[in-house]
Each structure stands twice: as structure tokens, then as C-alpha cells.
């Protein structure tokens, strides 16, 4: 456990004074700061406590992976961090803003401007071209389709798909589709990218290439990346690995030694 990790194993609640003092000290260097996050869901079997008082700090510019068994709360945690799910209690400060206190419209605008998404199943719109898919986040941010298209073409060139800009996503391989998804996640230069199992639909080599590409691009931009994954083959790409179990963060690894040379 390191100071920069600032994670309380088991997510034990702390006194407000202690928490605020520590929050203030680390604020500038922290992209995501969550405290005492709790979330429960009702199910047929009764109430499921997905998060049990999580404390989480993610340093700016880092690649952080959330790992753990299915149902341990990883997806719930990144959903709350991404602002698409509300916590029952606790709070999250994302890029210096406590998003949950904003109005719905401001939350949407914050998310559109500051957060990029990469999904396991890519979720590209099949009736749009590759270029149009990549341009979508900029269009959501109010840019014209033409301007967004130019920016999208530039990012697609960075991921090596300049020649695919007018193709339909359906004709691309899985690896190419995930590269398109990376381009889409980064096209509007968000400060935070959340990824859900970005390599689980890909073979080993393609997964490695995708993570290499992602790491290279976020390093250039200083983007913070939070990845939920089961794929231990990509752990070497992480700056930090947070292990979760039963709604709690149970450990942190800083994997400097194991990281492949850039």
C-alpha cells in the first residue's frame, strides 16, 4: 500500500476531518477521488451490496486497472466514476469536480467533455462509417460534423486506420474495431478514459497491440485511464492495479518493475 494509492483496504469509513485534510493535499495530482462509496442493488435474492464504502484515488496521467472476480463491484465502480450511475452514499471528485452535485445538464456536459469510453463490445454505430463513429463525441460536444470529421481523421491516422475512415465498422476485424473505439474515446481529448474489458474480445497479440497503442496515446496527452479487466496478460501495462473483492478494494500493486519498456 502506498501513499499515492491512498486506498483503505476494506473501504473502512474515516472521520471527515481526516479525509478532508488528505483530500486537499493530494488534489492537484489526483484525477479521481472517491470516498466511502456505497451502492446496493435489489435482486430476487435480496439486496446485493455492490460497493461497501470504497475509497479510491487515481493519479492524473496514470493507467489504473481494476481487477477482481465477477460480481466484485468493478463495473459498478467505473459506472459511478464515469458519472452514469449514482452512488447510494459517499462522493466522487472527478478532475476536481464533484459531479453528483451538478445539475443533470451540467453532468452530461461534463461527461461529454472530459470522459472517453472504451467498451468490451466496441459499441460502434453500425450504420455510420468509421470516421463518423470517431467524430460522434465531438458532435455531442457541439462541433459541426465537418470539423469533427477532420479531427476524427487525424486520430484515426494516429491509430493506423486512416485508410478505413469511410468503411463501415462491420467490415473491420475485432482489433481494428477496438482501435476505432480508442480513437473515438480520445478524439475529443478527454482527461479521463474509462475502459471496460477492452481486450477480452480480442486475441492475445491484438490485445497487446491495443494496450500498447492506448498507453502510447494517453502518455502523449497525459490522459488518466481507468480499466476494468480480467485479462492478466495486460497487467504489465498498468501503473497501478487495484484488486477488488466483495465490494471492497483489497489491495494495490504498483507494477513499475513489470512494466514493459515503452
Amino acid at each position: 500500500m502506498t501513499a499515492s494509492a491512498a486506498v483503505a483496504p476494506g473501504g473502512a469509513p474515516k472521520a471527515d476531518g481526516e479525509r478532508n485534510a488528505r483530500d486537499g493535499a493530494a488534489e492537484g495530482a489526483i484525477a479521481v477521488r472517491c470516498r466511502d462509496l456505497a451502492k446496493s442493488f435489489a435482486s430476487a435474492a435480496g439486496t446485493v451490496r455492490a460497493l461497501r464504502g470504497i475509497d479510491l484515488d487515481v493519479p492524473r496521467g496514470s493507467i489504473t486497472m481494476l481487477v477482481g472476480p465477477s460480481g466484485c463491484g468493478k463495473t459498478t465502480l467505473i459506472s459511478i466514476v464515469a458519472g452514469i450511475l449514482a452512488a447510494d452514499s459517499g462522493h466522487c471528485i472527478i478532475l476536481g469536480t464533484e459531479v453528483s452535485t451538478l445539475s443533470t445538464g451540467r453532468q452530461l456536459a461534463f461527461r461529454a467533455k472530459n470522459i472517453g469510453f472504451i467498451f468490451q463490445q466496441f459499441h460502434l454505430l453500425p450504420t455510420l462509417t468509421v470516421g463518423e463513429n470517431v467524430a460522434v463525441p465531438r458532435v455531442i460536444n457541439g462541433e459541426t460534423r465537418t470539423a469533427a470529421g477532420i479531427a476524427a481523421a487525424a486520430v484515426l491516422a494516429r491509430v493506423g486506420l486512416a485508410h478505413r475512415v469511410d468503411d463501415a465498422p462491420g467490415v473491420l476485424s475485432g482489433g481494428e474495431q477496438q482501435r476505432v473505439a480508442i480513437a473515438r474515446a480520445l478524439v475529443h481529448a478527454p482527461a479521463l478514459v474509462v475502459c471496460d474489458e477492452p481486450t477480452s474480445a480480442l486475441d492475445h497479440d491484438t490485445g497487446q497491440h491495443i494496450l500498447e497503442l492506448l498507453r502510447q496515446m494517453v502518455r502523449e496527452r497525459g490522459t488518466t485511464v481507468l480499466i476494468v479487466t480480467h485479462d492478466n496478460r495486460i497487467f504489465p501495462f498498468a501503473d497501478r492495479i487495484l484488486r477488488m473483492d466483495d465490494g471492497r478494494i483489497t489491495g494495490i500493486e504498483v507494477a513499475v518493475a513489470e512494466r514493459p519498456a515503452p
Partner: protein
Amino acid sequence: MMAIALQMMFGDRGKFFGMVIGITFAALIMTQQPSIFLGLITRTYAAIQDVTLPDIWVMDPGVQYIEESKPMRDTDLIRVRGVTGVAWAVPHFKSIINARLPDGSTKAVNLTGLDDATLVGGPPRMLEGSLADLRRADGVIFDRDAAEERLRWRGQDGRERPLAVGDEIEINDRRAVVVGIGEASRDFVLVPKAFTTYSRAVTYAPPQRRQLTYILVEARPGVDPPELARRIQADTGLRALTGADFEAETLRYWLENTGIPINFGISVTLGFLVGTAVAGQSFFNFVRENLSHYAVLKAMGLGSGTLVRMVLVQAFVVGAIGYGIGVGIAAVFGTLVTDSVLSFYMPLQLLAFSGVGVLLIVTLSALLGVRQVLQLDPVVVFRS
């Protein structure tokens, strides 16, 4: 984002064509069937519309529609002429009478007797001969449809031919000579139309005490026709209606005494229901299959309001396309049946009617889609 919404819809060709076909079908049925209906009901009073000159029709109080023959006394014509405000009044005869064609076959004809002096009430357009030819001995003018179709006769050479100028026939066993072919509006009863003078018509008709079917009245300049009609009614005890009122009265009779409105109403309702079912289900499925994409957009920061607008734009654009095609097909159908026995009348009000129907279908479909989008939880994007 609206352009993206349309791209999402146009790109899913199967669903898109399903929705367009559903709405096209509904728009077609909701336009074409009422057009046929309107065409039919306008034919019920076509004979009144063909008689353009007089302001007022005077008839027996028991008459409910134009083809109903309840003759008045000849002296009633004198009484009507005596009413203040009447510029002129002429007799008008209408009756269905048997005619024997040159080959000996018999057909019923709808005989109209025109005032001998003025010939008011003849066919609006003459194709062969002139109205004045009715003054020739035993002269009768036939409507083109009657002459060319329903009164065709077989010559001695065994070939069928239309009734033509110069042919001699018998009407109620009395000689008649075809002196002209005119063109009258098609009417509802489809009995071949023939025209002759009033005095000759009453000789063709079976002998009866009363022969005067209608009196056609023109109001003096400055006299209000409805007011004059009321005055004629009060002074003579006869029924007097303006042309428009008589058309409405005739229409009301056919609507009330036949199942036509119900039958067409059922067709229109079925068209609406089938269109709603097909288009609604296709649109519902389209939105449902795109929920993950809407969820991605929602996760990326697109608001529910924008998503709802996207769904509405998709629904209303597909509605407009389907409506355009449906109405277009109906219009082509109408053009093809022009000048045929099929009736078709598509006024602007009918386009508004079917437009409202399509709008209703599209709105219902859109509501199904909007409901799904509003209930959409963007968290689903993280569920594989």
C-alpha cells in the same frame, strides 16, 4: 445529432423499409378508399350539378333524392311562376323508362325531359350534334357512356356497335331518333342517360295523371335564392331547395340508407390499424435493437432530450416518406381511373385527413420508442 439519427435509421434498411411499407400502406388505404368513397357519393348528386343554370329545384314534398320521381300537377308550374322574386321557372322531367334498341333488346334508360323553349338542364357538353337538335322530330340525345357501353347493340352482321347519331330506337314503344351524343357526369345509379324535350318526354312516359317531376327556378337579380326557396315553399306547399341544399339532401339520403359509409369506414379503420401495427412494431423493434447504441450516446453525454428528439425525427421522417409514397400511389391510381367507371375524388381536405391518420400512427410509434429511450439506463453499455 439529428443527421446521425437519420443515418442510423436509413442504414438499417430492413427496419426502415418495414416502417415505410407500413405507413405507405396505411396512407394509401386512408387516402384511396375515402377518395373512392367521395367519388361515389359525389356521383349521387352529379345530375344536380350538371344542371347549372337554375338557382332552385322545386319538387313534391316527399322527394328525398334526385332519382326519386314523385310528380307534381302541371298547374304547380304556374303557381311557382307566380311567386314574387321568381325570374323564370321551367318544367323538368325525370323518369326511368324502358327503351328497345335497334337489335330488339331492351334496356332501362334514365330519361330527362328539358323545357322545350330553353332546353335548360341538358348534358353539360355535346360531343356530336347540338342541344337544339332535340327540336327535330323524335330527337333524343344520349350520354356518351350510355351510347358506347351500356346501350351497345348487335347489327345484322353480328357485330356489336355503339348507339350512334341516326340510330332509331323505341322508348316505351314510341319511335325515337338519336340526334346527338353528349357527356354528362357519371351518376350513382348507372342507368344510361337520355335527354329529350319535356313535351316529348311525357309522351314517352307511361300515362299518368301527373308528369311534372321538377320545376327549375331562377331568382330575380338581387333576390336571395335560399330566401326565395323558403317563400316558394310557404306559398305553394311544395318543397323548394337551392341546388346546394338539394345536393346535400340527396347525399344524406344515400349515406343514411346504404351501408356505403360503414363499409368504407371499416376499410379506412383497417388500413389505420394495420398501418399502426406494422409501422409501430417495426419502429418499436428498430428502437429496441438500437438501445445499446442510444445507451452509448447517453453514456457519452448525450441528454435524454436530444435522444427523444432523435427518435421523434426518425419517426416523423419515416412517416413523411411513407405518407408521401402512399398519397402518391393513391394519386397515380386516381389519375389512372380518371374518365372510367371507377369513381375517385381526392380533395385537399382528404389529404389532411390521411395526414392526420399517419401523424397519429407515427406519434404512437414514436411514443413506444421514446418510452424505451427514456427508460434506458446507460449503465447497460458496461454489460457484455
